[in-house]
């Protein structure tokens, strides 16, 4: 899976949680919670979506490592095998 494919999947999962974001451009280094006004339940639902779509289970203590889109892509890429 390429980095671009992961990006697309992560964004799809994100738009399931927050459909309001629409086609909004998300910078790779922007803090998602701040930028998209996500709360901890939204983050959990995103993590659940990623798990469903890609089979990658992100433990709670790693939430800090997926704070930005760029970081989340790297995190998932390293675990997707």
């Amino acid at each position, binding site marked *: 899976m390429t980095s671009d494919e992961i990006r697309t999947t992560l964004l799809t999962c994100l738009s399931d949680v*927050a*459909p*309001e*974001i629409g086609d909004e451009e998300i910078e790779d280094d922007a803090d998602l*919670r701040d930028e*998209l*006004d996500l*709360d*901890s*339940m939204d983050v*959990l*639902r995103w*993590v*659940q979506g990623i*798990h469903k779509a890609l089979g990658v*289970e*992100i*433990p*709670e*203590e790693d939430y800090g490592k997926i704070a930005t889109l760029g970081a989340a892509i790297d995190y998932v890429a390293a675990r997707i095998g």
Partner: protein
Amino acid sequence: MTAGTLAKWRVSPGDPVSQGDIIAEVETDKGLIEVEVFETGVVESLLVEEGAKVPVGTPLAEIATVSVPASVSAPESAPESASVSAPASVPGRIISAGSSEVDLDGPMASPAVRRRAHELDVSLQGMHGTGDHGRITLDDVEGPAPPAPSDRVRISPYARRIASERGIDVRRVHGTGAGGAIRASDVLSAKVPAPGKPVSAAERMQRAIAAAMTRANDEIPHYYVEHAIDMGNALAWLREVNASLSVSERLVSGVLVLRAVARALHKHKKLNATWQGAEAVPSEEIHVGLAVSLRGGGLVAPALRNTNEGSLSDLMARMIDLVSRARAGALRSSEMTCATITLTALGERGVDSVTPIIFPPQVAIVGCGATAERPWVVDGQVVPRPVMHVTLGADHRVSNGHQGARFLSALDRLLQDPEKL
């Protein structure tokens, strides 16, 4: 809310329905609301067509209910007729898309009259209204307490008539006559408000919030008590539990607070009540309303029914469902009206504490700030602990600070034993 538009029927005459079924969708200021049926039976007739706008309380459908277990041959199973009514959304004063307004549990008066009463510091409670159906008019308000001269707009009767015809607020017109008096020419040169500008759903919602919060501030004598709670035990327990749960079953700390609030209300029934006319009526059931901010603006506080019951996992699933539906605009009518207290958590946005305003007709609200590491004394040692500031705002007509403080202490104790939640 005074009216709603029947967007869609989900049932047809002849369809069997059970208690809790969604039978229609109604478009309101608060978005699309699903109308539930409270009887079990068969839809006999639909009384309102799709697309029709009807006042709150209008019967929507007739449902034939059967008083004994259905039996084809039983002649004594005389069908009773029940009707479903248009939902009254959040009880209280909510402005509809039009500008009319109904106050469901207070004196009838238009927004302008209430504003004037507020300006003049005149209470509408118990005032005799001389308008239609006892409606309180501007004259009623201004009669007993004449406005101070500085409040009064000096305007000629002719200019006032032109202003009224054009929908111009004379208080915003600059008068060029003697002593600042407004002349007809001032009115004619004033900007006419854009006619019939469509009001967006977000604007309607903001107006509804404005109406409810204005009423809360006008009518409810709030008192506040605040308490800092050590969340260390709760978060440690949560981490442990979540580590053992699959990702689809994980809990968030908000659900612990939600449950703890519901449990703490068991012994503090004065906070779990609604103000009805002249007294508070305690509720046997505990339905905590959850303030949900909608991205892009707007706020709703739908209820999680029986928040004190069921497992935490069940409550978590219900919370996710409720918040998702709130954001998608698919709440049910009963969820919009049945909350007996509200919980608002702004800690996610990093603020230390929140001083919330009660959502009428409720009589209390709990506000949570961020859970953040703070110096805390444990066994004589200063240690860093995750601390959350919780504020209770309550109606002083119903409870007092002592009771409020005891409630927050109970909430603290419950959060120290998260496994019991």
